């Protein structure tokens, strides 16, 4: 197969990516941080750091900690707020030729609505990833992402405030991921992003205290890959939405596993820290796989392992 015959384009519920490889929110800054290491235009999409309405300072340190084949983070959504994002960070990415996905987070449904409305009509944003792993302050801190009714409502509200494709990012800390995915679909989601981090912690035996100032943090990296694959597989079996799959992807074979489990696109998070050009390398690796296996379009393998 010749390179020119290969179609790597991906349509993630209206978000068009030139190849399936996205970089995950919070792990790639606003793109610029990695420009020395790879060609950002070679990526399928850059999902920028989670943005809130107002600036947030985030959690006190220690914010991150390495665990076996994984890491915990409790950044606390430090970000400069949506205005600074739009005025100071987005222009850099607009100058590039890459799909930009905004990632938004709020503590109330109104904040999500306001964020979606603010992004409406902004040039250079291809879609919205909804981070619903934030505590819902109105509901006593219960995460939006763990209750199907809240998931449906927040998606619906965001959809009502934007013409952009909306992709809720599902939390894996739930009993029944399919139920949550169906609720997102009911709310009008165009695609699903899976998975966010597993909630975990570590203890410093010396000090006899939790390592993270925030006590709990999100577990990411290869450690969670089996859980991510399982959830994507389950959702692909039952729900008819394209999935952006991630959680511990470290190489091309991992990426292929996610696609075979049902992910139309894949996202690289923690892997960027280990190899700053990983996303690019995987994009090249997927092309090689297509050549070796005579695959014109990677859609041929999406969900191929799933027994429906």
């Amino acid at each position: 197969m010749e390179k020119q015959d290969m179609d790597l384009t991906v349509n993630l519920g209206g978000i068009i990516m030139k190849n399936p490889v996205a970089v995950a929110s919070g792990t790639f800054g606003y793109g610029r941080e990695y420009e020395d290491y790879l060609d950002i235009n070679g990526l399928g999409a850059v999902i920028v750091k989670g943005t809130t309405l107002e600036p947030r300072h985030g959690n006190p340190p220690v914010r991150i900690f390495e665990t076996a084949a994984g890491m915990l983070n409790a950044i606390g959504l430090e970000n400069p707020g949506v205005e600074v994002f739009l005025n100071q960070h987005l222009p850099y990415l607009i100058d590039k030729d890459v799909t930009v996905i905004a990632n938004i987070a709020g503590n109330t449904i109104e904040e999500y609505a306001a964020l979606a409305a603010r992004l409406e009509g902004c040039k250079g944003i291809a879609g919205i990833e909804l981070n619903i792993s934030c505590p819902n302050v109105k509901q006593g801190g219960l995460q939006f992402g763990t209750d199907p009714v809240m998931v449906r409502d927040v998606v619906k509200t965001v959809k009502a405030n934007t013409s952009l494709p909306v992709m809720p990012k599902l939390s894996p800390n739930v009993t029944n991921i399919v139920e949550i995915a169906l609720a997102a679909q009911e709310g009008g989601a165009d695609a699903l992003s899976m998975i966010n981090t597993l909630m975990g912690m570590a203890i410093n035996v010396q000090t006899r205290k939790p390592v993270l100032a925030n006590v709990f943090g999100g577990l990411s990296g290869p450690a969670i890959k089996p859980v991510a694959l399982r959830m994507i597989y389950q959702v692909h079996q039952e729900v008819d939405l394209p999935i952006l799959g991630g959680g511990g992807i470290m190489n091309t074979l991992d990426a292929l596993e996610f696609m075979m489990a049902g992910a139309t696109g894949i996202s690289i998070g923690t892997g960027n820290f280990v190899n700053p050009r990983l996303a690019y390398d995987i994009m090249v690796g997927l092309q090689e796989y297509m050549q070796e296996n005579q695959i014109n379009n990677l859609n041929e393998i999406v969900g191929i392992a799933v027994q429906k």
Partner: protein
Amino acid sequence: MPLQENGLVINHQQVAQDMYIMEFMAPAVARECQPGQFLHVRPGNTNDPLLRRPLSIYDADQEKGSISLLYRVVGAGTSLMTGIRENDYIDIVGPLGRGFTLPAPSKTALLVGGGVGIAPLVYLGRALIQRGCQVTAMMGAANENQLVAGDRLLEIGVPFLPVTMDGSRGYPGMVTDLLVPPVYPEEIVIYTCGPEPMMAKVAEYAQRYDIWGEVSLEEHMACGVGACLGCARRLKANDEAYVKVCKDGPVFNIMDVEF
């Protein structure tokens, strides 16, 4: 411009109990190295340990194209690194971060290092000497065996005062005990790296005598490039915002930091 490179290890030696110096060829990175910057080093090829480890540039030879690291074994990553042998490759990203600011050549520089904190001060010493500054290093360690950078400092031409907690060599006590009131504080600049209590004393000294200085801080890091916001630190207790040690530092002005 920082980049990723596979350094070819040309020398790797244990220099004290739990202390190693590794030298490798990495010409593209070496070319860019500034004193006080660090490399983000991958200790192994599997998923555990997973993240890179930040290690200061202990020395660099831009002509030869080599870089040296001085590291102490404290956990899984540095343990694994001890198994790397000559002719093996080591995966590095760098140089990263904001390094030391070099003073006017007329200044006298005081380097105050504690333990493995001496590492970045050695390459700084080299740059200062090149610049024509007067340099004196004060190097504290638990005992004589841990005073590992002495030969290198001599080679560079940096006179140094050894200080050991157990008195086995040099002045017995803490390195900060040597910080006597300066006669011409405005002629002096001070650079420090080491345990926080030590740096706190150096900062207090600099403040008291109004000496310009810089400190090199440590924080747990994931990306090392300013993307993950993992290495946050409040410089002063009442600051609302955090700095990123990897990108805004690791070197900060000594007056900006509260310990």
